[in-house]
């Protein structure tokens, strides 16, 4: 196969006039900048850069919304999230910031909206062990000494970067509206395979699943669709994997 014509990449050629012109321009820019500089530095402790609302920073946790579904720890690509048992026998996430890569997959995967993103990016730890953050420390915002009097935004005007400084403190916690809930309900897809272990009834927090013995001595589990919140705990715990979450169809 014959190769097509090759093109050699060469740098642009400048004649003497162009060289003098570019040199004079460069020196002019340097002089102009040293008199009126477009300094792009943010004086960090005294002022803060305004981060976008979807900034991926420190992760906050709301135990009331957590359903202990373990999704966050399953999805975590860095294995930073471990579930730990709380005194109320529930499992809550803990984050090891020595491992966390701030991908926020956990927040995306959280079904109850219990994990929340903040704009905090400057938390200091004494050593690697202290970077392991237990659940209790994730509920409140970490203690931050705010020295900043202004916040800074970058603006690009006429191909140049400009800083826009505004007085006041930037908010670090973003209030996100709660996710739109799709009403779900747990249903048994194959009642014949049920072994009657009653794990689903034990795990249900709302008492929606009850067991009853039928005439023939067979155990029958019943799901009360009005009480069921569609949290999916029973689906996860079912040893025969015959429970499934379905969209609740109300008339």
């Amino acid at each position, binding site marked *: 196969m014959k190769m097509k014509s090759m093109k050699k990449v060469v740098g642009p050629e400048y004649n003497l006039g162009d060289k003098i012109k570019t040199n004079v321009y460069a*020196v002019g*820019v*340097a*002089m102009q*900048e*040293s008199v009126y*500089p477009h300094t*792009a*530095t943010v*004086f960090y402790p005294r002022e803060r850069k305004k981060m976008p609302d979807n900034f991926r920073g420190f992760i906050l946790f709301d135990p009331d919304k957590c359903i202990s579904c373990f999704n966050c720890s399953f999805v975590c690509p860095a294995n930073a999230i471990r579930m730990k048992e709380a005194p109320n026998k529930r499992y809550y996430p803990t984050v090891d910031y020595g491992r966390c890569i701030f991908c926020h997959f956990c927040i995306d995967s959280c079904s109850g909206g219990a994990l929340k993103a903040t704009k905090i990016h400057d938390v200091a730890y004494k050593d690697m062990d202290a970077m392991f953050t237990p659940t209790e420390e994730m509920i409140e915002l970490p203690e931050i000494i705010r020295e900043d009097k202004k916040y800074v935004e970058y603006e690009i005007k006429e191909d140049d970067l400009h800083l826009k400084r505004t007085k006041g403190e930037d908010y670090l916690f973003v209030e996100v509206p709660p996710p739109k809930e799709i009403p779900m309900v747990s249903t048994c897809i194959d009642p014949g395979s049920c072994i009657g272990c009653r794990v689903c009834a034990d795990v249900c927090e709302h008492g929606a699943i009850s067991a009853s013995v039928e005439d023939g001595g067979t155990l029958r589990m019943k799901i009360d669709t009005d009480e069921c919140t569609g949290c999916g705990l029973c689906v996860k715990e079912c040893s025969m994997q015959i429970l499934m979450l379905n969209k609740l169809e109300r008339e």
Partner: protein
Amino acid sequence: MMEIINTLMETVMSNQVSIPLIEPMLDSLPEIPMLQYMVAFMLWKPIFALLICPGLTVGGLSLLFFPWIERKLCGRAQWRVGPHEIVWWLGGVIQLLADSLRFLFQEVIVHKDAHRPYFLQFPFLSFMIFLLPLLFIPAGTIVAIQTPYAIQIILALVCLFPLFILGFGWASNSRFAYIGTVREAFMYFAYEIPFIIAAIAMIILYGTSDPLLMASRQSIPGIILNPVAALVFFIGAAMATGRMPFEIPDSDQELCAGPHVEYSGIAFGLIYVLCYEKGYILSALMTILFLGGGSGPAIAGLGDLSGVFWFVVKTYLVLTTLFMLRAVYPRYRLDQGLKLGWSPMLVMAIIGLAISLVVVAVRVI
């Protein structure tokens, strides 16, 4: 005894720096014993040149503040801030003072393989070659030693700087220092020849090498009479100081710090200011050769200090431009530096020499 003192006083009083502004103050001094002798001694022109300008005081102040000015200006040109946190309301002026305090209390480490006596001697001796050329540099009309061969002597003494840098590298006995030293030697030959030819061109142009006479013959500044030689001299000075566009010997990215890689503490502090010392002397030389020395509109009340003022202003202007180059130009490789020195600069220096000859011939005709 009194006769000796009187004859000494006569020589001292005959060559005083006259400052009309402080003369009423000086007239009231005889009431205080001894002080008038001391003031007269201080105002004796050679001692004034040695201790105040262009000597220790102005030189030392420029060593103290020029690293700051350089870093600040380059920072602004590159959208940074430069030194900021130490006395931040003044923009970090005393940065080098803080640094030198740190240098003072830091241990000077002499490693096992170093040539110990030379390793410790060279940094301290290198300060001497900064002071020696200052004896021959006039600020206005004030000069410590007036000789008709001043420019040649200054050039010869400035050429001692690379010798000391070679000394650092040799005494360090380290591979980085060795490579840096070889590069310094290469660069030295590349810039020194065009540099000296440019200076000779100006000596030919003025017909003298006495700085005071040179200043008086520059009714038109030398930079207009011979811009080519001025350009060559300026680039040569930039290469000689070894600052950013030409920091080939101590290239941080490749050789850590080149010849002074093994130094620490106050020894490093003295080497750190070496290029500023060299820059100060070369800027003073450029002021004398091309910008008319201390000549300028006389300022009422300052007397002889008027010349000193213009000299310092011009020198600092050249020095700032010299150090601002690092904000504008990217750095050169060794081969590019050598090529620049041996071909375009050498040719331009010879063209400058020819221009000088033509100007001299035209004047004679």
